[in-house]
C-alpha cells in the first residue's frame, strides 16, 4: 500500500447528498450540481398529489440521465395506502424494476411487504413518514426487508448514531428544508378540516396558518405551529461522527435555484469536511456557505432536533413571506462557443441588467447583458418567462447552470 493509498483510506466516509427532483429539469439541475442521488415521485402513490411529478417516460429518461452521470434515483411511494390505493401498484413496481431505479421510499407496511415478497430486486428505504425513532422500531423494519431508514425529524444525531450502530442499517437524515411540525405520518388536520388526506398527498399546510389562541379571555394571534426551516451546514461534523449514510434536502416543490444552491453547497461542505475536517470552520466562513443558503426564499433557519430536541426557538411564528436576496432567472440550455448562451427564461430580465452565473462548483460570476437576442436571432429589449433567448457568451457557463439576479431591496 503506497502513502497515497494510506491517506485515501483515512478519509472518513462522506454521506451521500440526496437532492429533491420535482421534475425532469430539476433532476438534471440537481445531478449537475453534485447530487449523489435524487428522489422523485411518479404520478401516483407519493405525498405531492397536486405537483407536477414524473410520467413514466420522464422517469425512464431521468433514470437514464442520472445513471449516466453516476447519480442514483429513488422513487417515493410513501403515502399511507387505503385499500383502493393498491390499484396499479403492481404494474408501477414492475416498471420501476425494469428501468432499474436504485430504491423505492415507502411508509406503509403493506407496501413494504408486497415489495419484499414480489420485487426482490427493488431496494426499500423506509420513509420519514413512518416516524421511526428508535432501535426497536428500526429492527422491526429491517426484518421486513428495509435496507435504509429515513429517520423521523425528531431524532437527534446522537440517537441516530446509536440506531446505526445497533441495527447496521443505512441511515438517512434530513439536513435542509421545510419541516413538518407534527410527528410525520400522524398529522390529519387536512383530512378532517378540508377532506384532503395529508398522508396521501393532500396536505393543506394547515400548520402554516395563523391561529387565534384563546385562554381565559386572553386571545393571541400567532403562527404557533409553523416550524422554521432546517439548516445543517454548521453540524456537518456531527453527521460524519454519527456515520450517517445519506443527507436529504427537502423540497420537491421548490424551484431550480433552490435545488441547485442547496445541492452545490452541501456537496461542497461535506467534501471539505471529509478532506480537511480541522479547517472546516475556517472554510465555511471563507466560502460563504451560510450566505449562499440565504440567497433563495426560505423561512428562518434552525438546527431542528439535530443536536438536541427542538425547543421553542424552532417555531417560525411569522406569516410566510418571499424574503430572498436572489431571483432565479433561467437555465443555460446550450452554449455556442465564443458566440452566445441559449437560455430558458424563468423570470423576466432586460438589457443593461447584471446577472450571476451559479457554476456547478466554485464561486458565482457576474455577467453584464449588453444585448439579448430571441431564439431566432432578433434583437429584443427584455424577455418573457417561458421563452428561450440568447445572451452574450461567457466562459464559465455550461449547459444546465442556473442564472440568478440580485433582488434590489
Amino acid at each position: 500500500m503506497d502513502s497515497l493509498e494510506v491517506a485515501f483510506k483515512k478519509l472518513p466516509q462522506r454521506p451521500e447528498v440526496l437532492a429533491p427532483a420535482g421534475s425532469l429539469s430539476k433532476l438534471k439541475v440537481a445531478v449537475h450540481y453534485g447530487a449523489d442521488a435524487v428522489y422523485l415521485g411518479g404520478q401516483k402513490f407519493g405525498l405531492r398529489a397536486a405537483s407536477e411529478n414524473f410520467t413514466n417516460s420522464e422517469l425512464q429518461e431521468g433514470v437514464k440521465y442520472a445513471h449516466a452521470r453516476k447519480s442514483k434515483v429513488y422513487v417515493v411511494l410513501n403515502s399511507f395506502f387505503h385499500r383502493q390505493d393498491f390499484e396499479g401498484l403492481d404494474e408501477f413496481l414492475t416498471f420501476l424494476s425494469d428501468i432499474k431505479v436504485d430504491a423505492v421510499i415507502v411508509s406503509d407496511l403493506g407496501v413494504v411487504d408486497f415489495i419484499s415478497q414480489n420485487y426482490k430486486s427493488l431496494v426499500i428505504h423506509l420513509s420519514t413518514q413512518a416516524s421511526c425513532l428508535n432501535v426497536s422500531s428500526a429492527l422491526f423494519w429491517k426484518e421486513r426487508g428495509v435496507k435504509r431508514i429515513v429517520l423521523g425529524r425528531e431524532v437527534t444525531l446522537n440517537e441516530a448514531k446509536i440506531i446505526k450502530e445497533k441495527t447496521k442499517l443505512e441511515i438517512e437524515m434530513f439536513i435542509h428544508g421545510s419541516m413538518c411540525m407534527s410527528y410525520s405520518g400522524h398529522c390529519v388536520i387536512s383530512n378532517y378540516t378540508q377532506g384532503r388526506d395529508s398522508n396521501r398527498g393532500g396536505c393543506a399546510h394547515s400548520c402554516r396558518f395563523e391561529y387565534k389562541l384563546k385562554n381565559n379571555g386572553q386571545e393571541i394571534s400567532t403562527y404557533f405551529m409553523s416550524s422554521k426551516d432546517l439548516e445543517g451546514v454548521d453540524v456537518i461534523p456531527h453527521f460524519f461522527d454519527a456515520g450517517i449514510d445519506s443527507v436529504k434536502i427537502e423540497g420537491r416543490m421548490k424551484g431550480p435555484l433552490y435545488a441547485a444552491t442547496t445541492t452545490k453547497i452541501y456537496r461542497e461542505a461535506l467534501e471539505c469536511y471529509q478532506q480537511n475536517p480541522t479547517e472546516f470552520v475556517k472554510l465555511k466562513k471563507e466560502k460563504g456557505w451560510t450566505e449562499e443558503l440565504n440567497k433563495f426564499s426560505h423561512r428562518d433557519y434552525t438546527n431542528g432536533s439535530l443536536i438536541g430536541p427542538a425547543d421553542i426557538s424552532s417555531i417560525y411564528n411569522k406569516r410566510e413571506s418571499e424574503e430572498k436576496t436572489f431571483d432565479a432567472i433561467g437555465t443555460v440550455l446550450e452554449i455556442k462557443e465564443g458566440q452566445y448562451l441559449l437560455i430558458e427564461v424563468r423570470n423576466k430580465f432586460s438589457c443593461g441588467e447584471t446577472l450571476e452565473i451559479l457554476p456547478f462548483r466554485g464561486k458565482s460570476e457576474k455577467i453584464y447583458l449588453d444585448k439579448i437576442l430571441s431564439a431566432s436571432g432578433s434583437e429584443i429589449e427584455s424577455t418573457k418567462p417561458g421563452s428561450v433567448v440568447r445572451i452574450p457568451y461567457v466562459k464559465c457557463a455550461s449547459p444546465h447552470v442556473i442564472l440568478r439576479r440580485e433582488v434590489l431591496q
Partner: protein
Amino acid sequence: MKYTIFVEKADELKLIDLTAVSHVIISPLGLSRFGKTSAEESYVIIQAARDLKLSVIIEFDMYCHESLREGLFYSFKKFYLEALKYSPKELLVKVCDLGVALFCAQELPKINLHLNLETSFHNPHSIMSLANHPIIGPALKRVSLSPELPFMEVKSIARSLHLFNIKTDLLLFGRLLLFSTPRELLTPHFEEILKIKEDLMIEGGSEESPHKGFPILQNKQGTFMFNSKDLCLLDIPEKLREVGLDSWVIDLRFEEAEKRVRLTNQALSLTDIFGQEKFLELKNTYERPVNRGFFLTNKSDILLPKLKNNRLQNRHQLMIGQIVDVCKEQGRMAILLRDPEQKIKAPAKLKLSSPTGKEKDMVVHYFEDAEKKQLTESSGHNLLFIPWMSGMTTRSNVFLDL
C-alpha cells in the same frame, strides 16, 4: 355489543352502569401521552376492574425517542409486572410505536398487545401483516382501527382480524386527535401559566381554516391538537350493530370526572335503547359540537382524485416540446424539445395546440437549427425550428402525430 370506557380513578367505576362494559382504559402518568393516573391509582383501578370482571387496557402509547427508550421500557416493565400481581381478568397494553410493540412482545412473551392504528395503517394488507408477524402477531389481541375508515372497510377488516382471533375496537364518542409534536408550542405564549401548571388546554381557531374551536393541549409529552368537532356515532345504532366490531370506545378523558361519569352513563344508556330525546340530552350535557367523522363516508377518498391537476398529470406521451419563440418575419418558430436525446425525423406530422385551445396540424419536411441549417432529424438539439403557422403562440404544445 360491548363497550370500553376511560376512567381516571377507581371510584368512577362505582358510578357507571357497567352492564355492557367489557374493558376499562387506564392512562398511567409517564407511560401514556395523556397520562395523569399515578401508578398507585392505576393498581387500585386494576383491582376494582378485576372484582367487576372487567378487562383492563393500559396505555403505553408514547412515541419512543431512542434516548428515552431504555428508561421508558424499564419503567413500563416495572409497572406491568406489578400490575400482573393484581390478577386482572385480562390485561392489554395499548401501543402506537411499532418499536414499542416489538420490544414488549420480545421481552414479555405473555403480554397481550393492543395496537393503536388510529393513524398510520389503514389497509387490510398492513394490518394483516402485523397479525402475521412472527413476534408481534402471537401477542396481538386487539386493534384500535382508524376513525378515518368508512363503515364497509371497518366491517371488512374486523371480519378478517377475527380469523386470527384478534379483537377490534373503534372510537364511538370522544375527541379526534389531529396532530401531535414533542415541541412545546404553547410555551412562548403562556409561559407564566405553564410555569405553574404541567398541562394547559386552550382553544385555537384560524381564519384560514373552515373550522374553529380546536382544543389544543400542551403537557410534558408535547403539544396535541384535536378536531373542533368530536366524534359521536351514537345516533346510528343499526350501523354500529351491523359493523361487527368487538367493542366501541367511549373516551371522555378530557372531561372533569363528574361530567365524564354522567356522560358515559348517558352514552351507555343510548346504546341500550336509542331515543332522539336522550341523544339531544347527551349533546346538551356534552356542550361541544359532535359529528360522525368519516364513518359513513371518507371525504378524502372523494376529494383525493380531484386534487390531481389534470393539466399537469395527464401529459401526453407524444408531446415533443413547446413553442418558445415565434418569428413571423423569419417565417419560423422554435420548439424547446422535452428530450434532446429523442430523435425526431422529417418528414414529420405534427399537431400543435395553443394555450387558448386552437389546434392545427402540419407536415414538416425539414427542420432548422438556430443557425438556419436544414436538418432531416434532430440530434441532441434543445431547440428545433419549424415553419411559422398562424394562430400558434409561445407556450403552444407540439405533439408527434403518428
